[in-house]
């Protein structure tokens, strides 16, 4: 059982007011809030052992290196990677995706095919378009149905011996759909294609087992699961990471350098050029500890209750339409009310202290599918409550009244 009142005390920001009203934070799919336990780790790092890592002989550097590498092991254990060097620290999901897309530039040729899903965030579309431009490979799209679910028979039909890569998010940021990645991975492997799963939206709700999934690459950002911004990770199978060339040159990623030739360091350092976000990496580890202490099963169960309750309450509002009604979905509700512009509702809700997302959610192809300019998106985390949903419904009704 999850004690939400106790959990809320961990998040100092939940005590603040916005426009004179208690903050109700429903923009968790954009970024999650940070618990005191993670904030303490950040303060402790800069107060007590800030130093550059991996190359210092002094104690401080050793302590910082140990903490950073321990965080890598925490992440490895969390995602059940076989080796800790299969976890690459990056600046976040977008960086991770670009690292892989760039690496594949030298592995693809004209005639090769890449598959993405219709549910992708721009960050999982644009790097692949750029990759196709560089290599002459072509981009295919798995279409979605009205509920926001991928049409798997169409996916099956897209796969062939030219398919080299498949990219799909685990959970759609705009609609909350949980994609059947097990099926997608199995089918891709059957034709010899590699699969990258974008876990930006899933990592706060699901604990993926990368070995059981047999996924080739899995990426996520720390800030979506109660960690700081500017840090994330790329999991890649060792064999794939060895095949990909380095992404950025710099310090840390080399074995030996001369003006004639440079040899690269082994994993994970090959992909970690320059001084990394050391504090961020350590805090990422602390965030994973925090989430695991609450327990992902407890989180999933509680968030499902919030989703069911929120959906039920919203559906009672006349003229309200929910976009994304997949059978398997997470605590994200995207909706519009009549012809009212999402921006107008978001603005009025903000005046009442409620933070939601409005717009196209960096997923314009989904908005084009539904022929709408955008939606209002309320996304819940385990620290939200049914009482907050009630207050949100009252505020929403008021906004609708003002705007009609």
């Amino acid at each position, binding site marked *: 059982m999850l004690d939400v009142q106790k959990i809320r005390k961990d998040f100092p920001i939940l005590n603040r007011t916005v*426009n004179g009203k208690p903050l109700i934070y429903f923009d968790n799919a954009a970024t999650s809030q940070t618990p005191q336990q993670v904030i303490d780790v950040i303060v402790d790092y800069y107060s007590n052992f800030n130093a550059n890592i991996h190359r210092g002989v002094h104690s401080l550097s050793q302590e910082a290196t140990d903490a950073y590498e321990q965080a890598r092991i925490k992440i490895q254990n969390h995602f059940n990677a076989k080796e800790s060097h299969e976890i690459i620290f990056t600046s976040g999901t977008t960086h991770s995706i670009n690292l892989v897309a760039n690496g594949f530039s030298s592995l693809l040729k004209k005639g090769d095919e890449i598959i993405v899903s219709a549910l992708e965030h721009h960050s999982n579309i644009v790097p692949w378009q750029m990759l196709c431009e560089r290599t002459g490979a072509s981009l295919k799209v798995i279409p979605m149905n009205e509920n926001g679910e991928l049409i798997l028979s169409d996916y099956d039909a897209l796969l062939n011996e030219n398919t080299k890569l498949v990219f799909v998010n685990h959970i759609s940021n705009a609609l909350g759909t949980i994609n059947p990645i097990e099926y997608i991975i199995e089918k891709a492997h059957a034709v010899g294609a590699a699969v990258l799963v974008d876990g930006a939206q899933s990592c706060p709700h699901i604990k993926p087992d990368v070995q059981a999934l047999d996924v080739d690459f899995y990426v996520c950002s720390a800030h979506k699961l109660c960690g700081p911004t500017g840090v994330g990770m790329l999991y890649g199978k060792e064999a794939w990471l060895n095949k990909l060339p380095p992404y950025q040159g710099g310090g840390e990623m080399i074995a030996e350098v001369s003006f004639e030739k440079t040899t690269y360091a082994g994993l994970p350092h090959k992909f970690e050029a320059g001084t990394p976000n050391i504090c961020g990496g350590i805090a990422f580890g602390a965030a994973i500890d925090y989430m695991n202490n609450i327990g992902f099963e407890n989180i999933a169960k509680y968030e499902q209750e919030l989703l069911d309750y929120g959906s039920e309450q919203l559906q009672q509002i006349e003229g309200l339409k929910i976009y994304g009604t997949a059978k398997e979905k997470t605590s994200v509700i995207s909706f519009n009310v009549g012809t*009212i*512009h999402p921006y*107008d509702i978001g603005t009025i809700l903000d*005046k009442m202290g409620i933070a939601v997302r*409005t717009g196209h959610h960096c997923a314009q192809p989904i908005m084009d599918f539904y022929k709408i300019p955008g939606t209002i998106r309320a996304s819940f985390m385990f620290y939200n409550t049914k009482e907050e949903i009630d207050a949100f419904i009252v505020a929403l009704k008021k906004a609708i009244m*003002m705007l009609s």
Partner: protein
Amino acid sequence: MTIEEVQNEIIDEFSMFEDWEERYQYMIDLGKDLPLIEEKYKTEDNIIKGCQSKVWVHANMDEEKVNFTADSDAIITKGIIAILIRVFSNQHPKDILEANTDFIDQIGLKEHLSPTRANGLVSMIKQLKMYAIAYQTQLN
């Protein structure tokens, strides 16, 4: 009326409102009353970039006075632009260029002035002034 006189008149109107609700309700009503731009001017070229909602602005000059018409798909944005048009329409381009927009702060809409805010009030003001620059150049 000069730009400053119009601004003062708007400040007076807004001073009657006691809270944000009344202010926003008024803006929403202004938005509904906004003289609509002619359909033929709702082109890609006339869209102001930097707004989360779509905003179209068209300008013309008649006897050295610039007139603006506009539309938006969001009603609050329309309200904001209705206020701007009331201030800047039927004015000499030089006066438009020289006018400041401090009155927005004084009517309690300061939050919309932030350059990072997605509604693009700053972009709207910039666009109106761009038209004024263009017409001023014609007059020189």
